[in-house]
């Protein structure tokens, strides 16, 4: 029989190894899943994880990976603060959508005026503020009425979802769109477009912002008092209170950071890859970012790597869908499985396995 024994200290080794182990196990379980679907498991795994980066058409897929990784990393970094402190913003998806709506609203308000020097930055501000305002709702309710922030933030996702659908067929519908739903294409509006800075690389402003946020976040967590307070609160709320951390203010700040970063991710998405407000706005980044944050151990560098990996599953999954006729839901199952496996093997960081004889004893 296997027994779990608590470690005296969190294992450093397993902290770094469990994400890798989780990815490998997920590939194995995923392979079994593909085999059950009657597909060649090895080929499927290769199509998803290998070909987009090293295969024949990598020149097409690599920029796609980067474009998908940017919002995942931005949102996940924002979430990592709250998650470290035990503050559960599950509604980044909603904050991301509202950020996109606000940014697009700014762009559409100025259309067709020229003036990228102020319109584009203003869109960024609008995206950040939109996400922040949406995140403030669960934060304030939690602080003043002790509501559960998990439920409130999650429910607000569905409100945001309804709003973007309403905007795409209502207020923001393209007047020249022949009655089709969806706003103007922001990629065609040079003052608001977030296009590749160097063609064929996938590098747009969102990617640069994501990299900047990774570096800044690393510095804050390692060196700044705020990062220390976040960690202290997560480890032991009472000890944090004793150290002088104002718990309510910390909740608000964590929500502001995650909301702001999710909102700006929405801004870069609506002005770039998505190009318009539409009911089917590329979604689930806000949810997938939760997986990214945990897979990356809530560590900025880890989140960078995990964001790239999850982006790869989107891109590779899409490729496998067309090339091997794999159902599109498979990739979501894959992502869910990854989080599930990660949380399971995470036990190893705080416990060790002991093989003990069941019967007899001494």
């Amino acid at each position, binding site marked *: 029989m296997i027994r779990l*024994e608590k470690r005296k200290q969190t294992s450093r080794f397993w902290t770094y190894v469990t994400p890798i182990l989780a990815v490998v196990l997920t590939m194995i379980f995923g392979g079994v899943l593909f085999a059950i679907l009657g597909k060649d498991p090895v080929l499927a795994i290769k199509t998803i994880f290998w070909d987009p980066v090293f295969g024949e058409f990598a020149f097409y897929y690599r920029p796609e990976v980067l474009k998908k990784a940017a919002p995942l990393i931005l949102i996940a970094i924002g979430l990592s603060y709250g998650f470290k402190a035990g503050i559960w913003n599950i509604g980044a998806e909603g904050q991301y959508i509202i950020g996109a709506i606000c940014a697009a609203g700014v762009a559409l308000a100025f259309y067709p005026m020229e003036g990228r020097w102020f319109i584009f930055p203003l869109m960024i501000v609008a995206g950040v503020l939109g996400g922040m305002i949406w995140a403030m709702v669960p934060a304030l309710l939690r602080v003043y009425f002790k509501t559960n922030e998990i439920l409130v933030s999650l429910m607000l996702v569905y409100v945001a979802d309804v709003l973007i659908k309403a905007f795409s067929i209502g207020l923001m519908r393209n007047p020249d769109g022949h009655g089709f739903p969806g706003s103007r294409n922001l990629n065609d509006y040079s003052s608001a477009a977030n296009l590749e800075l160097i063609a064929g690389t996938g590098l747009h402003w969102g990617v640069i912002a994501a990299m900047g946020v990774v570096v800044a976040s690393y510095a804050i967590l390692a060196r700044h008092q705020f990062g*220390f307070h976040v*960690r202290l609160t997560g480890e*032991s709320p009472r000890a944090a209170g004793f*150290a002088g951390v*104002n718990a309510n203010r910390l909740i608000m700040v964590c929500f502001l950071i995650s909301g702001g970063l999710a909102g700006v991710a929405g801004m870069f998405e609506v002005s770039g890859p998505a190009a318009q407000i539409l009911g089917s706005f590329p979604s689930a980044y806000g949810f997938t970012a939760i997986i990214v944050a945990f897979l990356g151990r809530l560590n900025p560098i880890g989140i960078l790597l995990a964001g790239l990996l999850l982006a790869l599953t989107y891109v590779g999954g899409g490729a496998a869908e067309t090339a091997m006729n794999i159902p599109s839901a498979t990739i979501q199952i894959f992502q869910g499985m990854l989080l599930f496996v990660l949380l399971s093997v995470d036990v190893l960081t705080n416990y060790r396995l002991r093989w003990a004889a069941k019967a007899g004893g*001494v």
Partner: protein
Amino acid sequence: MSDQLLSLTGLTKAYPGVVANDDVTFAIGKGEVHALLGENGAGKSTLVKMIYGLVKPDSGSMTLNDQPYHPQEPRQARASGVAMVFQHFSLFDAMSVAENIALGMERPPAPRDLAHQIREVSQTYGLPLDPHKTVGGLSAGERQRVEIIRCLLQNPKLLIMDEPTSVLTPQEVEILFKTLRQLKSEGTSILYISHKLDEIRALCDTATILRLGKKVDTCTPAEKSARELAEMMVGTSFPSPQRQDRDLGQVLLSVSGLSVAATDAFGTALRDISFDIRAGEILGIGGVAGNGQDELLTALSGETRAPTGMIKIKGQDIGQWGPNARREVGLLCAPEERLGHAAAPNLSLTENAMMTGAARRGLVSGGLLNWSKARDFAQEIIASFDVRTPGSQNAARSLSGGNLQKFVIGREVLQNPDVLVVNQPTWGVDAAAAAAIRQALLDLANQGAAVIVISQDLDELIEISDRFGALNEGRIEKFVPMAGLSIDEIGLMMGGAGTDV
């Protein structure tokens, strides 16, 4: 048939990196009160857990009544007649006494029968207890009675008691001892774990002393002095705290009419507490656990705010200030709960040094943390307070209770406080470490600081404090000079046994 109830032979249990029990052999006679003595980390708990079936030994054997005994789980141990009263009670506050007792039984009788049985046992053993009372409203002593009665209902042959008197008033201790002596006369054996050496000398027939997992000696405690016992536990001799006469200076902290509402349902509100404390003075605050000790500490530390005008330091009103602002004017605190309040369990000692030392030791400037300075500070604490740990990078929870307590007290003392408030500074700490901590508090007062010691250990308060007051339901009626106060007077001030017997 022998006259031995339980005999242990060569019990060994190793955990990763530490041998908790190494070849421990001793026997408990029938109707014997047997003390298990040892420093924190000496392996007392592991040994008891093996007897109670919570932990399985790696090797060695036990016999109970000459039959081989190897319990797989506590249920089996209870079925064999072994019962245990834990140091930390496992009771549900919102349920009644009878309901709590029923929860711990294999086949609880019908509620009415159980209430009847509880009354019967409580009368037989002089442990007054109303089965229908809600546990949340009971004192610590009454809660312990719930646990003891729960054990006695099983008619145990061996009763294990882990630090039973740490939460009791002197009068309650007397009642407990009477009960234990009665049990002994009826042939029940008792395994008694404590670090209060005078109690062991008064109560126990035999003592087994553990040090670093090994049995070092078995003796008759009444024949040894408390000091000899302590030195056997520690393995070396150590100095007793030395107090010297001090001149009192100006009033540093002034508390007037402090009243703070309880923050949670089973907390205690502070009611109209007033005192002044001068430079060089040690104020002892006694009382049974749960009478507002924690609340008083958090009100002084700034974790809960007090209305204006109630707390003044050097004349400045600080009632509305947060913990760090109070630290900056020289008011430092060390809470009772080491892990999870005074220190964050999973963080390193360096990070825990940063926790409260940030402002006064200049570990932060402009929001940026200076980790190398924090490491130096942690190492300074480790060196000057003899904290046994491989290094400042180790997590707080990897330290033994005594070592972590030395670290927590050292962290505050080394910040040169004007006023230091400590709650239970030597709770669960071995004799040598406790002596070192008390000496540090005395030294601090000698240097002109005001020290408030909140403690349930009366010996400690008698040893170091100048004035004494007792917390009772959030009130402190009066402060009186410690010199010349008798144990009985102290007990009456604590108001415990006098009212509920």
